[in-house]
Each structure stands twice: as C-alpha cells, then as structure tokens.
C-alpha cells in the first residue's frame, strides 16, 4: 500500500489547536492564480481547451464522490451533465422564450440533476455495485434517447441554438477568458467542497462503505442512505457543470451527451487517481490534452487514445496520484504542523 510511508507513522498529537499550514495554503492558491495569468496570454483556441480541462476537472471532482469515495461505478454521469445543459438551453433561450438569470439556472440545473440522482438511486443503490454500473449506463442512454425524440421540448437531434449569453451579477460571460474566471472560481468551490466531504463524517462513512459495506452497516451506517447522499451530491455537481457547458457553447444537442462522455469523465478520475481531488485535475488535463495532441493522427486518434488508457491503467492501476496523496497530505507535508 502506498500509504505506508514514514510520515504516516508519526503519532498525531491530540492538541486541539487548528494549525493553518500557510505554505500548503499558498501552494494551493498559487495554482489557480497561475492558470489565470496563463489565460491572459493564450490565444482563443488553447484558451478553449483550457476551459474544457477545468470543466472536466469539475465534473471529475463530482464523479469522484461516487466512484472514488463511495467505490461505486457510475457509467451514466453524462445524464446529469445533460440535465444541467438542457436546463440552461431551455430556461435561457428563445426555445420557449424564457430567459432566467444564470445563477438561478445554475441552482435549478444542479437541483434537477440531484433529484434525478435520487430517483435513480433509490431503486438501485441497495443492490450490487455492478448493477449500478449497468443501470446508470442505461440511464445515460435513456436521457439521450429522450432528448433525441422529445422534439417539442428539445428540438430533437437538431439541438437548441441561439442560447442566451450568460450574465452573472452584471458581468457578461462571452469570451473564453470570461469563462476561465468562472471555471476557476467554480473549480475552487468544488475542490474545497469535495475536500471538506473527505474530512467530514460523511467522507468517513463513504470510505467505510467502499472498504467493507457489511462491516459499515455493523457499525451503524445506513449504507443505502449514505450512498444516496453521495449519488445526489455528485449528480448536482454534474448538473452545475452542464449549465456552464451550455452557457459556454451556446448550443446543445444530444450528440454532446453520449456514453463516450461518461467514459471520459470516469477515466479522468481513474487515470488521475481515485479518491484524490488533485487526481481529477491531473486526469482532466491529460485526457483533454492527449486527444488534442493526437489531432494530427486524425483517424488513429481514438485507437491511440484507447491504447494509452490501457497502458496507463496497467502501469498505474491506482492512478497517477494515489488516494493517499491528496490535499490533506500536501498540507501535512508543507504545513510542517500536525
């Protein structure tokens, strides 16, 4: 196990003082600042790629709650993402001539996705995890088929175009750089949120569910309910990501929400490192950048992508940044305290 490192054997003092490791906090803050500075100098296209990396990092953080912490395989995450995207597309466009503000739709999109998560989770989460994998996969397809066929609502395969420009408290989000600011902000929020979960009682309960469900129940944990909370939270992050995606593209169609998207998000966290928030960021960077770099190979792109994935998983089955090397570890290393 990777966690058997000398610093882990040190006794935790039972001192109650909350020591803030300034160095660790500084390093964590430096990263987004660096990204924002980098964003000032990038031309439009690389900036769009950077936006996509951040968006996938957010989605990865969300999915990580279910896959990384609770240890359940969700192969239909794109459904929640799609629900969010269509929320913005329907509630802020000429489709029904509804034009709600961005912040409100962000909440509505996340809320609808969360409700969908609960409705899907209730029948399935008490069963084996494998069933969850296949049922979520099926759910992703159902949502896509619905969007393809509910012509009156979604315009079917043509999708919804001419979606409103997003405004956030008087600030117009139009250029990729605007979205970079928004995404960096959302990523920080999602990161802190997920990190908080990890350290909280909910995180402890989720880890116990992942390690040994039966013993967890013996310890008084209502595993079904805890899984449901995880599933709902993760769906909400997916929904919020979808709203931002739709606002960024200003066009949505069912084509953007295929199984392939779910797969990419799962791979983001597996390649990066399950249960590690840094892993989601690293994974998103690699999985968005690699296909960009393979663009020159055109037709061979996906083949090479597949091979790269198998090789990464074979060489690092626990991901590039294993669970034990998360933000808390960084804080311990750099903070000096505790």
């Amino acid at each position, binding site marked *: 196990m990777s966690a058997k490192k000398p610093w882990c054997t040190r006794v935790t003092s039972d001192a109650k003082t909350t020591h803030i490791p300034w160095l660790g906090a500084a390093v964590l803050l430096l990263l987004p600042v660096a990204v924002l500075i980098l964003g000032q100098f990038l031309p439009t296209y690389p900036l769009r790629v950077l936006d996509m990396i951040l968006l996938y990092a957010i989605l990865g953080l969300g999915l990580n709650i279910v896959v990384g912490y609770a240890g359940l395989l969700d192969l239909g995450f794109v459904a929640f993402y799609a629900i969010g995207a269509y929320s913005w597309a329907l509630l802020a466009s000429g489709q029904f001539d509804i034009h709600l503000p961005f912040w409100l739709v962000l909440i509505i999109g996340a809320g609808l996705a969360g409700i969908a998560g609960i409705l899907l989770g209730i029948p399935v989460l008490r069963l084996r*995890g494998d069933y969850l994998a296949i049922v979520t996969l099926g759910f992703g397809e159902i949502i896509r088929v619905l969007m393809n*066929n509910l012509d009156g609502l979604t315009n079917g395969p043509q999708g919804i175009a001419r979606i409103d420009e997003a405004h956030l408290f008087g600030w117009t989000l139009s250029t990729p750089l605007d979205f970079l600011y928004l995404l960096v902000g959302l990523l920080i929020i999602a990161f802190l949120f997920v990190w908080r979960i990890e350290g909280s009682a909910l995180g402890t309960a989720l880890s116990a*569910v992942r390690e040994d469900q039966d013993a967890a129940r013996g310890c008084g944990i209502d595993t079904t309910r805890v899984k449901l909370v995880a599933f709902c939270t993760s769906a909400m992050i997916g929904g919020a990501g979808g709203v931002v995606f739709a606002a960024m593209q200003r066009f949505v169609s069912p084509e953007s929400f295929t199984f392939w998207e779910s797969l990419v998000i799962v791979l983001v966290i597996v390649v990066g490192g399950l249960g590690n928030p840094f892993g989601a960021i690293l994974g998103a960077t690699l999985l968005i950048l690699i296909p960009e770099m393979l663009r020159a190979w055109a037709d061979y792109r996906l083949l090479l992508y597949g091979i790269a994935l*198998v090789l990464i998983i074979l060489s690092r089955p626990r991901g590039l940044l294993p669970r034990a090397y998360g933000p808390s570890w960084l804080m311990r290393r750099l903070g000096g305290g505790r």
Partner: protein
Amino acid sequence: MGSVILQQTINALTVGSIYALIALGYTMVYGVLRLINFAHSELFTAGAFIGLGLAGALGVSGHPFAGVLVGVITFVIVGLIGVSVEIVAYRPLRGTSRLAPMLSALGMAVVIQNAVMLIAGRRPLIYPSFLPNGVVEIFGAIVTYKQITIFAVAVILMVGLELFVNRTNLGVRIRAVAENAETASLVGINPNTAISLIFFIGPGLGAVAGILYSSFYGVASFTMGFVIGMKAFTAAILGGIGSIPGAVLGGFLLGAIETFATAWMPVLTGGLIGTEYRDIFAFSVLVLILLFRPAGLLGEHVSEETMVYKSDF
C-alpha cells in the same frame, strides 16, 4: 390477431437468439472474474467484420455451407483475440481492484472498435447473407429461413455449451474456478487455463452472433456493438448474472419484451411512446425486475445478508 402475435413471437425468438449468444459471453466472464467485459460487444462487431473479410478472402459468397466454414474460422480467430485481450489487459490487473480491469476493458473496447473502423472504414458495409433465403408460412405468420437458421444455430451452440460445461472434464474445471478460484487451485486446477477457455468460448459465441446479426440485417457498421452489447448484458442480469441458463432465458425474454413493447406501446399509448424508444424498453424492464428480484430470474437465491458484497469495487 393470432397470426400477428405468432409473427412477433418468431421475430422475438430471432432477436432473442442473438442477445442470448452474446449474453453468454458476459455471464461466463462475470461468473468467474466478476468483471464486466466491456470489450465483448466490440468482439461481436469484430466477429461480423472478420466473417465478412473471410468471405472475401476465401472467395465464398453468401452460401449456407460457406457460412458454416466462415463461422467456425471466425469463432476461432475471435476466440484467440479474446484470450489475448484477457492476457494482455486483464490478467496483470487481477487482484488490484475490481475497477481497474473494468476500465482496462473499456479501454480495450475503444481500441478494438477503432481498429475495426481503421480496417473496414467508417461507413456501414453491405453484408452478404450466409443464411439461406426463402420463406415459409405457418398459421399466417411469415417465417424466413434466415430466422429459422439463426434460431437453430443459437440453440445448437447453447446446447453444445451446456454439454461442454456439464459433461466434460474441462467444463467441470471451469465450473470449479467459477465457484471458487482459490479452492480450485488447491485441488490442482490452474485458474488461468479455465479463464483463458472462457475468454475463448465467450467471444467466439459473440462473433458467431455478429455474423448472424449482420447476415440478418444485411449491414455491418463498426459502431453496432455498443447498443447490442449493452442489451445483451442487460439480458444476462435479467436472467441472473453468472448463470448460463439465465443468460439464455434473459436473452429470449429481452427479445420478447423488446419486440412486443415496440409493437404495442405506440398502439397502447396512442402514439405517445413510439418505436423510437425501442432501445430504452430494455432498461426500464431491467430496473423493474431488479426492484422485485435483485438476483435476476435464475440467479442464485440471495437473501439480504449475501446481497451486499464486502465492497462493490
């Protein structure tokens, strides 16, 4: 009216045969390794295209006897691909976590699908029919020879598999490993042999299903595996994953549900739910069945205490 139902039953049996053949591959792998072999659906596609390539290479066109020859060779080739996939992509990950091999399988699915695309091209190809032509009318229902052949081939293969697993020495080894790999290795059975055998037979059956499917519909495209594979896996769960008779039952049942639902739903709902929802009937049924029979129809009866595994992945 009666003849309409009969007609639909026959259509259901045809689709069901194909689902069942693919479901067998999923269920056998799952039974032994508790792995969802996502590459299986792409091996089904690969089987169809290899069959097509062989027909061209051997200079045989759509003739039933050529079909048997092509079927056997394809079975072996795809079987060997299946064995290599297991050795390369799954075996090194055994014992790490349950998630890693499953994702490796997803990666292999991408690799195989794109390899097929690179060789055969993006556009769907017209498929020569290896199945006999002609129709026969039974009580007003029209049955094509193709349908009869598909059903017959599927039944022969299933009976063969059943006999192999239950009556032969090798089959007993497979069952022993499926039951408990550790105990099996204690009594001198090498689990790897049994696992390789499973990865030979499962994809082989899937490949034959690919040829039958493409022959029936007359086209083959490199993306056709995904949805069919997903439904076949659903069929495997429906019947009780890990159970060979369960996969067969699940396959036929799913074929029936889909055929009848597609035919009757538009009528029953006044056109509100049309045939375009064909692909999602399967999942709706799956969720309903899981609610009432979590272990599937023929799965081992599980009480609450064994329902929850130590950890899911």
